[in-house]
């Protein structure tokens, strides 16, 4: 009956009836999916062309350099490329083989070649990464072997410096003979290899990175919590005020974005230092005595205060955008149903702000973990984060491989947190704006 009334129904039934079950086809008998793909191909091609410039830009300026950098964390051919004969000997003889005359000969020949091509410094630097104080051994030997050595090479080399006989040096050179190594990751986790190639912790006073990682994550957590505690009431106020007033307040929230980072950080120095404004006021008020001035900057406190200030907008904005969409009638409904204002907040309002809170917390945490300039300026020694160590290896020690290994570990840590967040809260619950 219904079919008879609807003229299209009959046609559709007839067309479907002709086909093998399961695949729909167009009127001229092509599979529907292929026809659909063809008809939308033009639109897709245009969309792709539109994003192509950005894609190329990101590939060239982000993916490629970062990939290069990350590669350095496992690859360093400073030794293997410049010491080919010794590297070949290491390849041919398993670990534990005492260096024979052929090995010493290869060492001498490689050193001579490297000295002539002026790459001996690179070789020394590479070995120096794994065994401190060996760079001068190489450069020193380089000067002496330039005129050639007489066999037996073992004695000749030991004549130059007794340290060449150190089994640990040979172990390190064996490690470096392959361009690919995990040693930088070991170093980044305060581990090293002993003479026999076993992974051990470095000496107590040299363990810095793990502690720094812990401190970075811990401080980031504290900063996330303080931005939440300070930002939540502000976001709520902004979301409930009339648009005109909230826009004005929003400008105040965004003001930090428009002020130079350096100016803001310097302002904190003026305020927080021992002879600074805050301490002066506290002394003047009699809260503390003149000799009790608080140390609020160039330590962890300084890092926390300055970074909380800088990252606050990243917490407020997602919270605000989520709170704006929460209909005030939810809280009213809860109140009319008999809930006190606290219960209505806890059970009804707060759970609905979670997507914004999640986004804000994730944003602040990830930014804090990688923050560099503020801790460098106001952190002193106890407020330094892992990024400051990465910067140091990039610019001062020039151990880029170690810097890359540290950065990769940091990235890995953030990704793990992201994954945990996804499992606990669900990433589609994230609302950034």
């Amino acid at each position, binding site marked *: 009956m219904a079919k008879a009334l609807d003229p299209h129904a009959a046609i559709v039934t007839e067309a479907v009836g002709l086909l093998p079950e399961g695949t729909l086809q167009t009127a001229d008998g092509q599979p529907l999916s292929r026809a659909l793909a063809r008809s939308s191909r033009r639109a897709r091609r245009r969309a792709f062309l539109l994003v192509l410039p950005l894609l190329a830009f990101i590939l060239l300026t982000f993916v490629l350099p970062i990939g290069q950098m990350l590669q350095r964390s496992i690859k360093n051919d400073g030794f293997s490329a410049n010491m080919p004969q010794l590297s070949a000997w290491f390849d041919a003889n398993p670990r534990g083989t005492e260096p024979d005359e052929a090995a010493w000969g290869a060492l001498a020949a490689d050193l001579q070649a490297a000295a002539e091509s002026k790459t001996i410094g690179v070789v020394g630097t590479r070995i120096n990464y794994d065994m401190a104080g060996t760079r001068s051994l190489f450069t020193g030997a380089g000067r002496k072997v330039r005129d050639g050595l007489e066999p037996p090479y073992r004695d000749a080399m030991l004549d130059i410096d007794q340290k060449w006989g150190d089994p640990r040096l040979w172990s390190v050179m064996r490690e470096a003979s392959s361009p690919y190594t995990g040693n930088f990751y070991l170093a980044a986790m305060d581990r090293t290899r002993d003479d026999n190639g076993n992974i051990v912790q470095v000496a107590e006073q040299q363990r810095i990175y793990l502690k720094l990682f812990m401190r970075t994550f811990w401080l980031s957590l504290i900063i996330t919590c303080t931005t939440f505690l300070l930002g939540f009431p502000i976001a709520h106020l902004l979301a409930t005020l009339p648009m005109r007033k909230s826009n004005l307040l929003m400008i105040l929230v965004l003001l930090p974005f428009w002020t130079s980072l350096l100016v803001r950080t310097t302002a904190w120095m003026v305020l927080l230092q021992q002879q600074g404004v805050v301490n002066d006021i506290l002394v003047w008020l009699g809260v503390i005595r003149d000799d009790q001035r608080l140390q609020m900057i160039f330590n962890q406190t300084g890092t926390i205060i300055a970074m909380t200030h800088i990252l606050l907008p990243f917490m407020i904005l997602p919270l605000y955008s989520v709170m704006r969409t929460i*209909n005030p009638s*939810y809280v*009213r409904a*809860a109140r*009319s*149903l*008999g*809930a*006190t204002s606290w219960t209505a907040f806890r059970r009804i309002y707060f759970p609905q702000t979670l997507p914004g809170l999640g986004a804000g917390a994730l944003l602040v945490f990830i930014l804090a973990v990688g923050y560099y300039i503020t801790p460098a300026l106001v952190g002193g020694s106890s407020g330094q984060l892992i990024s400051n160590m990465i910067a140091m290896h990039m610019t001062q020690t020039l151990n880029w491989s170690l810097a890359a290994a540290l950065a990769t570990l940091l990235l890995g840590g953030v990704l793990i947190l992201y994954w945990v967040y996804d499992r606990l809260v669900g990433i589609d619950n994230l609302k950034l704006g």
Partner: protein
Amino acid sequence: MAVAAGNDAFVVFDHVQKSYDGQTLVVKDLNLSIGKGEFLTMLGPSGSGKTTCLMMLAGFETATHGEIRLNGRNINDVPPHKRGIGMVFQSYALFPHMTVGENLSFPLEVRGMNSSERNTRVARALDMVQMSKFAARRPAQLSGGQQQRIALARALVFDPELVLMDEPLGALDKQLREHMQYEIKALHDRLGITVVYVTHDQGEALTMSDRIAVFNDGRIQQLAPPPVLYEKPENSFVAGFIGENNALQGNIEQLEGGKALVRLGNGDLIDATPGNICEIGKPTTVSIRPERIEFKPSLMPAGAHTLEAEVKDVVYMGDILRARLKVAGHDNFVMKYRNTLGQVKLSPGETIRIGWHPEDARALDPV
């Protein structure tokens, strides 16, 4: 059913005024008594103060002046959660992060009820709105009509004596709305609760209410049962706001035995009943319902004054025919007549004479 038996002043607004800015009054001197078990509708255009009154009753707004009493007790300073008033919101306000069952259980939980009693009550409330199968769903998984039922059940689950509804059917399509009107009315009759219902839909107000308070400009213009409101509007605003209405301007010429003769601008005389204008010589607007106009002399009362009318067009509406007439210089005079077998066919350009019973035309304040 008019005002139900029992307490005649269950909810009382006593000289209530409300101002948001200290400059203008949104609600001007409101006096209103609502009886226990009554279904009272606050009807009015947006900005007329009806929602503000509801919010003051619920406790979300405070009265600037005057007193609101619930069951004889002044509730001006009682916070919303202690008033024990159920409320249905226009947006339903079902908590999106809770299931239907949790939504219903919420008011019982905050009252400290134990879980077995809660479950019984929730089941009973869901059963009442025929939604028992949906307890585990989230509000977002329900249709508009289903959400509406849950909102209703949630407002009733803690057995409030007074339930407020703020345009609860505004978001539903016409068919569903009519169905829900019937269901809400049936629930009201069955449970004997007092309902204060806010709407701007006059059809909804007419079909559901025991009494309707028509709001305009911060005042109640008329408070009456639906038939009285429709047939005997007290002023031109009510006449124009409720239902379709024809308005003719003129002056009262003669008053006699509860009837008035009104002379129109073009000199014609018409019959009317004095409304809020009852003084000879005063300007007035005569209001007549389109379906009370007769054009067959046999159906008019003896001695009725008639007017010449030119048919402009006739719209076929199925059950009725709607003719637009030119009367006394006005183009938009509407007449409705039944579409019966053998009904006279009017055609545009035709001239007829129309008239009415004097009780069907009311002389009200000039617009």
